């Protein structure tokens, strides 16, 4: 285990921390919940992966476990973003004033019933 590897690993962790910081800044700066979720989801995923990769360089014997954690982060992070954004949309959270068309709202309105947005998704 050379000192060079430790420096490389620390640098990768630092890069991951930078992306995590950017995600936090994005959540603060973006105009509405949906764009905030976008900023949060993407940057935290890559940030987490880089931190895990950096740890893997520090401790090669942890590599498989870290890979499993990375897999779980990749599977669960987007799912939570769907859940949050869909809930926000159903609660009629206002979108940023610059927002253009909203195909989901239009389709719900086209369904006729006033509570189309609260009906559970139908499995075929």
């Amino acid at each position: 285990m050379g000192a060079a590897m430790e420096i490389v690993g620390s640098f990768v962790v630092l890069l991951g921390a930078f992306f995590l910081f950017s995600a936090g800044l994005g959540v603060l700066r973006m105009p509405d919940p949906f764009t905030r979720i976008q900023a949060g989801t993407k940057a935290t995923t890559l940030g987490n992966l880089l931190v895990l990769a950096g740890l893997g360089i520090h401790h090669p014997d942890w590599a498989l476990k870290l890979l499993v954690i990375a897999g779980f982060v990749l599977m669960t992070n987007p799912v939570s973003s769907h859940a949050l954004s869909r809930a926000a949309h159903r609660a009629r959270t206002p979108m940023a004033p610059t927002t253009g068309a909203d195909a989901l709202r239009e389709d719900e309105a086209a369904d006729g019933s006033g509570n189309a947005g609260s009906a559970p998704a139908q499995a075929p």
Partner: protein
Amino acid sequence: MKLTSKDVISIGSPTLFILLFVLWAIVNASLEPALIVAGVAVALAITRLFSGRERSWSGRIWRSLAVTPRALWHFLAYLGIFLIELVRANVGMLRYVYARHIDIHPGVVKVETRLASPLGRLALANSIALTPGSLVLGLEGSVLYVHWLDVRTSDREEATRQIVGPFEKHLEAAFG
């Protein structure tokens, strides 16, 4: 194996069993006989619980998974494309986050997918959430509602096709 009137109950999906057992082995980081026996028992129980009934919802999903070399290759190709898109998404996001003035024009766009399997659709929706400027708001049957960060940058339909296209090809081969 036991046959009831309509439902076939069996051990379940071998794919799920192997997945669970490998997970167990990695988490324990040891190949002691006692641990292997315990792992096989737990993995068998969970496999039977979640994919034992052929006609149950999760049973059908797991049984439709066939791990062939071709499916595996397409899954790896999908992972490669996905990681490249993830990095691109982050670089794009950094541009917005550190811009002096955040000038975006979001919108929600409707996209059709030709993927039929629930796992394939799940993987597609998850991938879209992590690719540049897009987020899946809803999934109804074969229709995805995608929230775009900036709909001005390019033709929405064309951009959507560009995002969904490469994933769809590989996911279709991997999950059916």
